[in-house]
């Protein structure tokens, strides 16, 4: 399990449940590496301000994470973490590699509104 303060998703079925039960979901799929930690940190910082969004992480090396790794939106990705934004069960945005808090905020505002 990732050592973050975010809620962890551990299986594909759990991800499907979360995504179907919540309107706006952000999932960061990574490892405890230098490109991933700043994204988890940004999410932890934004969690309080974006009550309309549910924030989760998922371990990249968990075989169940293939549900994210094999998304068509992540097909061209070659940088950790893979971060996926779902609205009403559908992927509306996905990013690869490190993102700043401002970059994450811009996507949240654009896709989910504040």
């Amino acid at each position: 399990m990732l050592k973050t303060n975010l809620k962890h998703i551990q299986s594909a079925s759990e991800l499907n449940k979360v995504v179907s039960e919540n309107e706006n979901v952000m999932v960061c799929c990574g490892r405890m590496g230098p490109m991933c930690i700043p994204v988890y940190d940004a999410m932890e910082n934004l969690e309080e301000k974006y009550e309309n969004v549910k924030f989760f992480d998922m371990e990249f090396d968990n075989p169940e994470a293939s549900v994210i790794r094999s998304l068509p939106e992540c097909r061209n990705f070659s940088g950790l973490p893979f971060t996926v934004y779902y609205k009403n069960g559908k992927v509306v945005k996905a990013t690869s590699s490190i993102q700043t808090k401002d970059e994450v905020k811009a996507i949240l505002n654009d896709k989910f509104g504040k």
Partner: protein
Amino acid sequence: MINSVNKMKKYDTIIIGAGPAGLTSGIYLARAKQSVLIIDQGTVGGQMIMTHKIANYPGVIDISGYELANNMKAQAKEFGCKIISGSKITGMDISGGIKSIEVDGEDNYSSDAVIIAAGGEPRSLGLESEKRLKGKGISYCATCDGDFFQDQDIVVVGGGNSALEEAVSLTKYARSVTIIHQFDHFQGFPHAIKEAAEHPKIKIILESVVEEFNGDENLNSVIIKNLKDGSLKEINASGAFIFIGYVPRTGPFKGIIALNQKDEIITDIEMRTNISGVFAAGDVISKRYRQVTTAVSDGTIAALSVLDFLNSKKQKIEYSLASEVS
């Protein structure tokens, strides 16, 4: 310039930056019963979290940068430091006796002393195509992303120790690694140069710079320019790892604090800057060696100098009050 109207919260010292230098200053000051606020615009730990393994921090045999950062953060909090991360400084007035800082355009803080421990950030090539293809071929971390490039041709841009060491580590995955470096010699340690130069999978192109990264959805090739004759050459590559050094994060302090030609903060040996009550520590200052140990050392000195500064400020106030009474 401070614009927001929220009530000002007062601390003895505000520390800008929560890398090893800032956290160490925080630990020393808070332990001396000073009120301390540490503000970081990014992630607590600074460049330490960029480091998979730190093997040269005395007393700790082998630790991940993330763990060392978390330990320092816990220690600073335990002594009473207030730490705010992921927050931008949007206004600043640190020239006078009372320093004031505005955060995220809404919160105001003041203090008697400030320590600038803003460290450095990776230098980027500044190309639009570099930004566009980040995570789609362009990477800044070999350990994180190396395994996406199994049996592929990749390039490493840079010629210091990081570039050389990471190029060698990437040969575990890649079919070929081409190092592109702007000078006619490397700036790394002799053993790192030797290991890269003698590696059968590594090719070296000197005196050349990247002009463009090509690719729509993914990186396909890199255009490089020969600095001697200006000729352009296309190299097929699906990955490009960029390690071209670090620049001090002194942008917000330009015109306020004295900087040297490399934009590093000039301090004396007690970490004092040219402004009374403003100190600096760590990678952000003008110095030769940049390590966690040197940042920790600077942070310690800055904190002890702040204590000295605050004590003499307090004594002056007490003395002038006493003279007014008598």
